[in-house]
């Protein structure tokens, strides 16, 4: 038996070895990277280009497939959004693909017992087509509803077409939870319903109004690429200013962080406009010749224009009182912005604008108008208008009488009727159902409304009233748990799909292709709907004459300039180089300003006085406007202005505003919470992992007698939850933050039971004019 080595002996041995220079030399010889190194690797290896689907950026990826397994993702250097880079979510994507909690076959769920049993795809197809045919026979195809998440390529038009072929206008996007407010801001001013693209690479001065450029904005990797180029990629670096109540990573990386009283960004933007106008720094050519409503107008000037309105109401001294930002700072920012062009003001893609009132849209308008004042619309270093690849039109929809009748009905989510300005009101579907709206079949594609909406638990009650709920989720998430049929889609690494490339202005297509054979008995939802259409027969089958979703893509993308084989090889195809339209040109009128207005003239004028909004609010009396939460009347209601946020919860009782923050790591999608590496790095900024937390200013915490990691109860008028507190110095004393995508009660072993979901105690109401969700108008109290 060998004697155990004592510590002393052990050190002796070590000392002898380390002391011997000769031995060390010999060892070095043995171990150079050049000589005697043998690298063993997979016997078969290939690299497949595809696209990441873990956030709204849609980065190009190159997947290393070794012996039939997807082992590593790299950014696709050809892809203009990420240029070879890849964020942690994309890097961890194999954890999604090989996740042990994935659904492996279609399931049927018994509502009474909650038990699930596997079914065949044929059975699923029959069940769904019978249900839809039944609705059509009953003459109510509109009672089929589809809610979807982030579908950026052909899938969106494909799903819409399917629902329209059936006869339902109810294809409801989740955009009312995130980008719709910004899109409306753009629509009501520039007349384009879409997110603006920003030419960060050429900008000299960037001011972000709460846009989370570097973490989880509307297109994070695009803004990171632009941002770092602006900072250190070129000879002269641009200045970046971030307006945000919280010192986000974006704010901490910026030249200047300006904490603001939450919900007052519109006042700041208009205060800056006031200084810019007063100082004569406006782009006179642009505001006089290409804008509507800068000066007072109508024959005798009896209608108020933007200039007089702003000069009368938004003196920096007054704005200081509204925003808490010193008037000298406001004046300085305005001078810097107007005097150091090209300058661009960026509105948030989500978050801050969704404060439950129309004021969020006013904010987006006011911020976007700053760009107009300094002539940064459609100019180098300013705002670009996103162009899209031309796709081959679908054949004309062969709708029958039933479908036509269904399509003529009002949308179930109230878009266009209850919410006259809204295009989608995702979260209000639950409210409509609970109020008695007839929904017979509900499809959830890439959607988990029971988790991701404020007060999402009400979806459980809503689903109980819908006889037939189908989820296409790859995971058993909170909403799939309530569905009757769970028809798992393969992960994005196993299926066909595409994305329109956004954020750079110029058009492009990014392709998803199966990098490996699907692991389980799953089906691309596109293919599923094609089979359902076939089984339904009649006009629906006629509308979908393709054999597979891949064929649909081939058909739609025929004219982009690359053939299918080339597109598969490169994974991406785009027409680089954004060409700015000349002011007032035909191109300008057709693509840049005003071309998507539904009511106001499409005359190429940028609206500083929104004629489109005037079509909705112009006739309203003061009391009608007051019902919509708009305190101004007449021209004041049309012009962008600051409306104080109407908080839920009395300030004395509930002193803090609760803000839900999306993180780079966990991202916007529920399934990412079940990627263990994302859980492990989730709370890097506050040194927390695998849990939720509440960020609070140290002074505020001190007043409440709280120290780091104390468990606290967070109570709003809508409920109470409990988590631990983290002290964050860079945070407005009246604001508390919680991370999004923690607190799952389902999805999988890594996501389930990690802290609490702050959305549960947010105001579930929808904004009355647009149907936008309310994310930032709930007050809470925090107690030990």
């Amino acid at each position, binding site marked *: 038996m060998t004697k155990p080595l004592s510590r002393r002996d052990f050190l002796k041995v070590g000392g002898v070895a380390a002391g011997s220079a000769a031995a060390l030399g010999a060892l070095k010889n043995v171990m150079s990277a050049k000589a005697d190194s043998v690298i063993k690797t997979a016997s078969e290896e290939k690299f497949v280009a595809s696209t990441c689907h873990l956030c709204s950026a849609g980065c190009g990826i190159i997947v290393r497939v070794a012996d039939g397994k997807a082992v590593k993702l790299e950014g696709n250097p050809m892809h203009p959004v990420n240029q070879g*880079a890849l964020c942690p979510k994309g890097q*961890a994507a194999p954890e999604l693909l090989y996740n042990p909690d994935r659904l492996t076959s279609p399931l049927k769920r018994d509502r009474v017992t909650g038990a699930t049993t596997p079914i065949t795809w044929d059975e699923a197809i029959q069940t769904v087509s019978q249900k839809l045919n039944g609705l059509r026979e009953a003459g109510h195809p509109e009672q089929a509803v589809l809610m979807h998440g982030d579908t950026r390529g052909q899938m969106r038009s494909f799903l819409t077409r399917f629902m329209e072929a059936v006869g339902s206008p109810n294809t409801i996007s989740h955009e009312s939870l995130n980008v719709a407010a910004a899109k409306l801001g753009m629509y009501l001013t520039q007349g384009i319903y879409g997110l603006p693209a920003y030419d960060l690479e050429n900008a000299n001065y960037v001011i972000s109004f709460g846009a989370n450029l570097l973490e989880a904005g509307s297109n994070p990797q695009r803004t990171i690429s632009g941002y770092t180029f602006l900072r250190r990629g070129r000879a002269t670096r641009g200045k970046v200013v971030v307006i945000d109540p919280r010192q986000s990573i974006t704010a901490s990386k910026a030249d200047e962080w300006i904490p603001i009283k939450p919900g007052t960004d519109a006042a700041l933007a208009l205060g800056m406009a006031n200084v810019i106008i007063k100082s004569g720094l406006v782009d006179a050519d642009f505001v006089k010749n290409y804008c509507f409503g800068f000066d007072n107008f109508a024959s005798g000037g009896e209608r108020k224009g933007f200039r007089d309105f702003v000069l009368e109401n938004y003196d920096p001294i007054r704005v200081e009182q509204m925003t808490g930002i010193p008037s000298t700072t406001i004046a300085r920012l305005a001078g810097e912005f107007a005097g150091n062009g090209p300058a661009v003001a960026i509105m948030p893609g989500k978050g801050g604008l969704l404060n439950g009132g129309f004021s969020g849209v006013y904010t987006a308008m006011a911020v976007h108008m700053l760009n107009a004042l300094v002539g940064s619309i459609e100019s180098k270093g300013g705002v670009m208008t996103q162009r899209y690849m031309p796709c081959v039109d679908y054949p004309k929809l062969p709708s029958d009488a039933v479908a036509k009748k269904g399509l003529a009905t009002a949308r179930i989510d109230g878009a266009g009727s209850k919410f006259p300005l809204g295009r989608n009101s995702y979260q209000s579907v639950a409210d409509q159902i609970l109020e008695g709206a007839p929904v017979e079949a509900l499809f959830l594609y890439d959607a988990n409304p029971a988790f991701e909406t404020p007060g999402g638990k009400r979806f459980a009650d809503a689903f109980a009233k819908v006889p037939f709920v189908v989820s296409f989720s790859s995971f058993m998430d909170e909403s799939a748990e309530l569905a009757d049929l769970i028809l798992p889609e393969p992960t994005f690494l196993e299926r066909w799909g595409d994305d329109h490339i956004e954020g750079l202005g110029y058009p492009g297509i990014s392709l998803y292709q199966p990098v490996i054979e699907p692991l389980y008995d799953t089906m691309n939802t596109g293919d599923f709907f094609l089979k359902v259409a076939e089984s339904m027969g009649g006009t629906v089958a006629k509308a979908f004459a393709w054999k597979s979703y891949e064929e649909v893509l081939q058909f739609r993308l025929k004219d982009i300039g690359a053939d299918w084989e080339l597109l598969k090889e490169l994974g991406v195809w785009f027409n680089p180089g954004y060409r700015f339209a000349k002011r007032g040109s035909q191109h300008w009128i057709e693509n840049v300003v005003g071309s998507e207005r539904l009511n106001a003239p499409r005359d190429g004028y940028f609206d500083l006085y929104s004629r489109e909004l005037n079509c909705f609010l112009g006739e309203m009396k003061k009391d009608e406007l007051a019902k919509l939460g708009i305190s101004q009347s007449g021209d004041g209601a049309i012009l962008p202005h600051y409306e104080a946020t109407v908080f839920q919860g009395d300030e004395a009782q509930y002193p803090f505003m609760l803000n839900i923050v999306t993180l*780079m790591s966990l991202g916007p999608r529920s399934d990412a919470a079940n990627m263990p590496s994302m859980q492990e790095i989730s709370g890097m*900024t506050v040194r927390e992992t695998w849990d939720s937390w509440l960020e609070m200013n140290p002074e505020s915490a001190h007043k409440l007698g709280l120290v780091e990691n104390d468990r606290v109860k967070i109570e709003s008028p809508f409920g109470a939850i409990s988590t631990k507190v983290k002290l964050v110095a860079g945070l407005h004393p009246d604001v508390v933050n919680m991370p999004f995508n923690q607190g799952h009660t389902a999805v999988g072993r890594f996501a389930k039971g990690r802290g609490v979901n702050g959305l549960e105690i947010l105001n579930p109401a929808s904004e009355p004019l647009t149907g936008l969700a309310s994310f930032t108008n709930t007050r809470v109290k925090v107690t030990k």
Partner: protein
Amino acid sequence: MTDWCMVIDLEKCVACQGCSIACRMENNTPVVSPEEAKNGREMRWNDVFPLPVHLGPDQGEYPNVKMHYSTRPCMHCKNAPCVKVCPVQATFTDEEGIVRQNYNRCIGCRFCTVACPYGVRYFNWFEPQWEETLAEYRNPDQLVVKGSLEGPAVRPVGVVEKCTYCVHRLVKAREQAKVEGRDFRPDEYVPACVQTCTGKARFFGDLDDPDSTVSQLSKSLRATHLLEDSGAHPKTLYLAEG
């Protein structure tokens, strides 16, 4: 003589943590349980973290606050303390300036984890585990030098592991050049973290070549090392913010 070196521009770094996970996926470092994570036993050879490391009064008071973030691979020191203390010469500096680890020799004494001023040596407290199907995505590469394992194939319990500047990628790139019958170019090889960096904040190359990007950047006025006074002569360079 080639001297591989990484330069990290902290101004371009956006603290996205892409490097941490790229490293994990490339080098097969396992996820540890939430309980072990609390004990600081996470296995991320390249970590991203807020500065200052220890919370203190120097964070500033609202609104005069400026948070900083940093990222930290191995410094591949020229006078590496970990190499000096290793009793069995499991860790060594190779002739191209990479501090490497021979997992067959390592006895898990953890002298090096204590000696390292940067805390970038990680002890395998447990048999590395990937739950069920998660094991499928592990990198199949296996660097074997004279019969000794050097990763990225999974290391056994009880050894110390570390960032290798993805040396297996270097060996692979050289082999590729050999197969194609041409000379190896230094720009054919970058570690996984450099390749994935979302902010293009990381640069990699030969410090010995005066024309390389890293040599040029090393002359920047912003160039600095982490804990310059540690005596370890760290090599990985940072470009300071500002």
